[in-house]
C-alpha cells in the first residue's frame, strides 16, 4: 500500500508504464534559477484542488493526472504563478513555470 503522501519532486517515472499515465511535470524557477523551496498544486478545470507536491531541490514536480485540462499553481516563498495545461494519455506534458 502506498501512502497518499507527496514525494518531493513527484514520484519517479522509474518502473511506471507511462503509456497508461497522463503525466504533467515541469520545473519552477525564479529569476532564471530553479526554486529550491516551493509547492506545486494541481487543480481541476473548476479550480478544485486535486494534488500537491513539494518541489525537488532542482525545482521539479510531477503529477499523474487524467486526460483533460488542468490548472497548475506554483507557490514559493514570496511569490506564486499559475498556468494551464492539457494532459493526454500516454504523453508527458512538460512545463516551465517562472515565478516573478
Amino acid at each position, binding site marked *: *500500500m*502506498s*501512502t*497518499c*503522501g*507527496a*514525494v*518531493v519532486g*513527484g*514520484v519517479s517515472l522509474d518502473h*511506471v508504464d507511462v503509456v*497508461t*499515465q497522463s503525466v504533467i511535470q515541469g520545473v519552477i524557477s525564479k529569476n532564471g534559477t530553479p526554486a529550491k*523551496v516551493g*509547492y506545486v*498544486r*494541481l487543480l*481541476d478545470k473548476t479550480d*478544485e*484542488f*486535486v*494534488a*500537491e*507536491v*513539494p518541489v525537488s531541490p532542482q525545482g521539479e514536480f*510531477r*503529477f*499523474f*493526472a*487524467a486526460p483533460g485540462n488542468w490548472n497548475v*499553481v506554483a*507557490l*514559493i*516563498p*514570496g511569490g*506564486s504563478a499559475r498556468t494551464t495545461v492539457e494532459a493526454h494519455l500516454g504523453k508527458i506534458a512538460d512545463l516551465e513555470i517562472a515565478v516573478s
Partner: protein
Amino acid sequence: MSNQALVDAEWALAHLDDGKVVFIEVDEDTDAYAGNHIRNAIALNWKTDLQDPVRRDFVNKEQFEALLSAKGVANDDTVVLYGGNNNWFAAYAYWYFKLYGHGDVRVLDGGRKKWELDGRELVSEVPSRAATKYVAKEQDRSIRAFREDVLKAIGTQNLVDVRSPDEYAGRLLAPAHLPQEAARIGGHIPTAANIPWSKAANEDGSFKSLAELKAIYEGAGVDLNKDTIAYCRIGERSAHSWFVLHELLGVKNVSNYDGSWTEYGSLVGVPVAVGDEPGTA
C-alpha cells in the same frame, strides 16, 4: 483562529525551547525531516512507527507506549504535530494520539508548508530527549470506524468522502501525484457526500476560519446532528477532515474510517456508486 487544538507560528516560536512541549514532524518522507525541520522537533514515521509491521493495522497499545517512551515523550507533555501535505499526516497523527488518549496534543496551523513559505528557520540538528515510561490508554473506538460501521451508515448516517471529485466519481483511483495503478475499483460508498478535505484549507495549508469551515459542511447539506464517518483512500486526508469537524468545530460523533477506499473498494459484495452523485442506499 483561536482553538486549543491549533497553534500558530508565534505560539510555536515561544515554545520551541520548552522541554515539556514536544514538536513532532510526521511525514512518510523521512528525507524531509533529515534535511531540515523545526528546531528541537523530533520525527515520527507514518508507516514504520505507526503501522503494524505485518498486519494492516495500527501499532497496538504496548507498541505505541514503547515508541513514545523511546522518543522521550511523556504523558504530561504537550505534543505539537506538524508535517507536509497540508498537515495530512499531522492530523492523522493527532487523531492517532487522541485514539490512544494523549492529554494535550495540538497541530501547528499550516504545518511545514506554511512554515517554509513564510521563510521561517529550519535546522538539521536532531535533538535528544531522555526516554520516558509512556502509558497509553485503550483505543477510543468512538473516533475510529470500521467497515461494519460504514455499511450500517449507508443511507442512515453521514458518510463524508473527502477525496477529490475525480476520485469520488471513480475517474481517478489515487491522488494525482501518484501513478494511477491501483487494482481496485473506482467510485464511492453510496450516499456519501463529497466534501474534499482541501475545502477546509487555505492555499498555504492553514485552516480556514471557523465560520468558513461550518459553512462548508452546512452548504453541502450534511446534518451534523447525525453520526458522521469520514473516509478517503487510506485515512490520512479524512483525519484532516475529522480534525476539522471534531476538534475545530466541536462536532461530536465523528469518526475516521482508516480502512477507507483501499479497503472498501476491494470488498466483495458491497454496494458502490460511481459518478458525481451520492447514489442511493
